[in-house]
């Protein structure tokens, strides 16, 4: 296991999570380093997406769920009663499996959330749109069609728009749940390249079924199985010489 005294932006401490009576996560203790990419891997149903959704309180929206243990974001427990989940989701943004732009113009996709959050100044909104799209490496492709519907973009462009939309709220952390599983290899490569450039400013946590993707984009990898964190290590270590046999069996395809 990695022992580090680096700056940890999110720490989970002995987290258990239940969907009703079903225990989806058991005693997960895991620290996410700031400005690094951490990948969560494991077979379907292992709890990796559940953990990701816990990190910005997305599971609050599902009835009958219960969290035990602590999830600290910059030292504060995000499940403390006084914490506003909306504010948490502003600082910890999320990108989903399928690109899900709003059926609005490209421009309005980006400004939707900032406007709700109270940004009214047109100049400020213009700057935000340009900055976000540039960071998502989409600006050059869409700068002349900002008024056109986002639904006309290709799948890969739509996903980068969703990333730009998340960035417009100036988050600290980006959660990505299988962000390229619906994309072709070229769009996937662009997103991966984007992840690499984004980590200078953001902390990225990515769930992926594509192990080569985890190997390519992340610095740290956590392997989950049956709701437990089996191994957390530097990605290079996981893919060349993991400490735990179960991890090795999974990443080499010896499973079941």
């Amino acid at each position: 296991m990695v022992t580090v005294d680096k700056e940890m932006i999110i720490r989970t401490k002995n987290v258990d999570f239940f969907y009703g009576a079903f225990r989806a996560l058991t005693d997960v203790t895991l620290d996410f380093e700031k400005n690094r990419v951490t990948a969560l891997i494991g077979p379907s149903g292992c709890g990796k997406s559940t953990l990701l959704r816990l990190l910005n309180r997305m599971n609050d929206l599902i009835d009958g769920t219960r969290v035990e243990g602590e999830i600290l974001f910059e030292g504060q427990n995000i499940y403390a009663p006084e914490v506003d989940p909306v504010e948490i989701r502003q600082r910890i943004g999320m990108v989903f499996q399928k690109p899900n732009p709003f059926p609005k113009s490209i421009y309005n996709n980006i400004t939707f959330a900032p406007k709700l959050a109270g940004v009214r100044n047109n100049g400020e909104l213009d700057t935000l749109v340009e900055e976000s799209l540039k960071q998502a490496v989409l600006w050059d492709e869409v700068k002349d069609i900002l008024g056109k519907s986002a639904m006309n973009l290709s799948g890969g462009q739509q996903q980068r728009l969703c990333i730009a939309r998340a960035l417009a709220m100036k988050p600290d952390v980006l959660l990505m749940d299988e962000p390229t599983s619906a994309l072709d290899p070229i769009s996937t490569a662009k997103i991966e390249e984007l992840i690499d450039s984004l980590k200078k400013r953001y902390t990225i946590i990515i769930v992926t079924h594509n192990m080569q993707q985890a190997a390519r984009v992340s610095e740290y990898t956590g392997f989950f199985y049956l709701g437990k964190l089996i191994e957390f290590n530097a990605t290079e270590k996981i893919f060349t010489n993991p400490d735990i046999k179960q991890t090795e069996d999974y990443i080499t395809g010896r499973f079941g």
Partner: protein
Amino acid sequence: MDEKRHTSAEYERELQEIKDGLLYLGALTEKALENGTVALLERDSELARRIICDDDQIDRLDVELEEKCIRLLALRQPAARDLRFITTAIKITGHLERIGDMASTIAEKVIVLNDLPQIKAYIDLPRMAQIAQGMIRKSLDAMVREDVPLAHQVREEDTVIDQLNDQVFRELLTFMMEDPHKIQVSLYIMQISKSLERIADHAEGIADMVIYMITGRSVRHQPTCAENA
């Protein structure tokens, strides 16, 4: 690759094929070495010529094995132990190919020596050849059985070969100083001894890679200078 098998039986079969190929290649090089000793002791130049001819097969197998490994790297994106096995296999096949070349070099020298008067009984050279053969076999056994202590044993045996090589050198030096007519034969014998010493180095190289394959840690290139330790 014991215990759990791959979900893909085809992948499992391909990995096994590479392992079998390495063992076969190892057996061929051992045989070449053994024949070299026989050709020297029995002054059988015909057998020596066959070693040189048979090296073509070793070369061909080396290329085939390497291609299989590269193919698996490209198509299967192996990780962890599979990755270490395949990258190790590429290096092992290279070592074995070089051992084959050394056996050919020995055969060439034997052919020349067989036409010249014998100046001494060959005692150390067959011993070196036998130890080197054992090192090749043990290093590959260590790979198959994932046996780290056995691989370490191979590394230690290299020291014995080095000592024997020094001994041969000193002995031949005396011969040459005593009688300049023995210089030509002595030089050929020395080249054989040096080739055997190099073969042992390659066997040690295989053992090093096997240790890496099993443990994920490299034991190659221990510093020779105290100041670099």
